[in-house]
């Protein structure tokens, strides 16, 4: 039974997808789901949209549009609906939506090596390698006046040199969810420092219901980024590694102490991972780190019995709260024959059509629309925890950089693991990773 349901989980059937990946996680996660996908023996579902488009002659253009599998119900139908709408406006263009359960990253990467890849695709991650390999088309000219309406972080994620290669579709973020009904009676305030978080975890742990959940790796994957950002530093600054400063080293030492003191009260080995709110809604944990995308599902399950906050600061007056600012963007495959038609379609869908952008961000799971105007007018994000989340994102959200490549992600991830799992010396590990990252940066220059 449990094998079965988790199979679904791994195949992404009911998972709000992790919309923020370090490349390392992307790679490793991909690998796992690839294997699972192979085991399930099911071909990725292909669904045709735009079937209602009037038959056209000779000059008909066919575009294939790839999505990874969003977990939220109704997303696939919505994607097909958008494609069909486009065919009504442009009868000579037929868009085929390809919905990819499982290992989207590996399938996309393989397809991009061939001439038969998708015309339009979404991607979440650093794009420098894609740009250098000539796999994505320059989209600077389709932005027009709308450029200033996109938030800076979305633009930055898609900028290489002075050109824009992608259009942000949705912004995503992580949140620390807590059960009000468990914290309030115990007199526990939402923790604002790592020490307070530790104390809350200890107080809330009952054995059956653990204090906190941030992933089946014990939270190491999540904590690495959060410790870095909450120490006030970044992966890169001025194109140099910025993660081996004294403040970050101190933060990691604090992180080691935090795990040593609290890991017994932190949930691990749950049926689903941190991106899925099941552990939280099923009372396996009193607090959980997961995404804004999960909020509608959490509300359905437990009503208003939850609050949200960012990852706490390192200490009082030390560091700052943090969360990630991730999401997905849309790209045109530069190696396909109909690049211009693909660009036009992307412009219609993700630049001109604010109704669709809001529908995609708000009608299924929760995401923040990357257009400032759309975000400002998004009713569901104006009240309650969702509104708090948007404030947290704008205040504390930290982005990925386009040139933070997979090799750098691996170096960083290995260092984080050695520090937090094997209690290695933070200074030595972070310096070694910085050296590796600098070598990669030198190659880029």
């Amino acid at each position: 039974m449990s094998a079965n349901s988790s199979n679904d989980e791994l195949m992404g059937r009911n998972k709000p997808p992790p919309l923020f990946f370090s490349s390392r996680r992307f790679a490793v996660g991909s690998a796992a789901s690839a294997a699972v996908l192979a085991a399930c023996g099911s071909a990725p579902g292909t669904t045709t949209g735009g079937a209602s488009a009037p038959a056209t002659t000779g000059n008909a253009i066919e575009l294939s549009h790839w999505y990874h599998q969003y977990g939220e119900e109704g997303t696939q139908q919505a994607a097909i609906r958008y494609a069909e709408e486009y065919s009504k406006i442009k009868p000579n263009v037929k868009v085929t939506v390809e919905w990819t359960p499982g290992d989207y990253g590996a399938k996309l990467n393989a397809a991009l090596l061939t001439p038969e890849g998708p015309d339009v695709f979404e991607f979440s991650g650093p794009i420098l390698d894609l740009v250098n390999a000539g796999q994505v088309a320059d989209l600077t000219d389709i932005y027009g006046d709308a450029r200033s309406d996109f938030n800076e972080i979305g633009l930055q994620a898609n900028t290489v040199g002075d050109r824009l290669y992608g259009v942000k579709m949705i912004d995503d973020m992580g949140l620390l969810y807590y059960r009000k009904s468990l914290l309030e009676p115990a007199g526990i305030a939402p923790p604002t420092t790592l020490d307070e978080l530790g104390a809350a975890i200890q107080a809330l742990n009952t054995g059956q219901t653990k204090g906190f959940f941030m992933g089946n790796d014990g939270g190491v994957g999540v904590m690495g980024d959060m410790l870095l950002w909450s120490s006030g530093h970044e992966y890169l600054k001025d194109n140099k590694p910025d993660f081996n400063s004294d403040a970050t080293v101190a933060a990691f030492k604090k992180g080691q102490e935090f795990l040593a003191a609290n890991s017994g009260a932190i949930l691990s080995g749950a049926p689903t991972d941190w991106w899925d709110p099941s552990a939280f809604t099923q009372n396996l944990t009193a607090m959980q780190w997961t995404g804004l995308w999960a909020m509608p599902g959490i509300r359905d399950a437990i009503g208003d019995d939850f609050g949200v906050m960012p990852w706490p600061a390192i200490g009082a007056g030390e560091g700052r709260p943090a969360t990630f600012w991730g999401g997905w963007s849309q790209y045109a495959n530069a190696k396909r024959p109909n690049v211009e038609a693909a660009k036009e379609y992307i412009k219609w869908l993700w630049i001109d059509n604010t109704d669709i952008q809001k529908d995609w961000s708000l009608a299924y799971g929760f995401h923040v629309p990357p257009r400032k105007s759309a975000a400002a007018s998004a009713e569901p994000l104006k009240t309650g925890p969702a509104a708090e989340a948007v404030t947290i994102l704008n205040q504390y959200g930290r982005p990925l950089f386009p040139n933070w490549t997979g090799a750098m992600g691996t170096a960083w991830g290995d260092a984080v693991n050695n520090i937090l799992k094997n209690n290695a010396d933070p200074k030595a590990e972070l310096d070694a990773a910085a050296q590796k990252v600098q070598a990669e940066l030198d190659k880029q220059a």
Partner: protein
Amino acid sequence: MSVQSVPTSTAAHASRQRRRQLRTTLAFWGFVGPLFLGLIVFTYIPVLWGFVLSFFEAKRTVTPTTFVGLENYLTLFRDRAFIQSLITVALFALFIVPATTALALGLALLVNSITRGQTFFRSVFFIPTACSYVVASLVWKLNIFNGLPFGLANMVLYQFGQDPIVWIGPPNPPWYWLVLVSVRLWLQVGFYMILFLAGLQEIPRSLYEAAYVDGASGGWTTFRNITFPLLRNTTAAVVVLNIIAAFQAFDEFINILSGTGSSNINLARPPLVYLYGIAIGSQDFGLGTAGAFILAAIIIGITLLQNRFFAFGREERA
């Protein structure tokens, strides 16, 4: 008439033979051709192509232009994570190879010694071999060694008054090795047991009878002096196949230790998992293929080395 008819019938005979030969040839290529073609297209060409790629900088392309010589190989030799992955897999092999061999041999001896129900037990122990690594890994990870109190292993512990254990995740104590090792043992012991059974049935009964006549007692004495020496070829085969399989470890590691967003995979990352991340994850095919050739070289080296010690694959001397 008859003089003339002889060459005619010889000619007819010859042409019949040619036709038959042609049919045989056609049948041969009809059966072998597709397989051969598949082997060339899906194995030999990619291997050769991969070898070429390993000397190029091939990021996000399989038709690279920047020749870098041995740079990719040198990068890997200097890469602490890659060296660590080789150490990880060596330790894994050091444990899994003797364990599999001993268990398979033990099972084979037991199954061979019973007179009734041999077929039944043979099948029972062999069936796990037919199970996919992925399926078994998921059952191990999510059902048996689930970290929650209602996981199977934890329910058993509870019966003995023990606290539940988070099997996969914490580095100390390294329970995850128990999960990784037990799933592979369950999956592969049956197969090697069959090899040993075949070996056992090759041993002439007369040798045992002669030994008994000479006053040897059964059990350990005959095992040490007859059974085990005569199983030398089988044992060597089992050990070599096992080592190769161990160095190619991938499926259970990636399925048990990693999941989306989880970094447990860093606990025990064999080279194939690391290289998969480089080639498929980061799309650096040059570095990935270079690593694959280093690993292939190691496996070939070990196989040749065993040849010196066990002589498996060498001609049997009369």
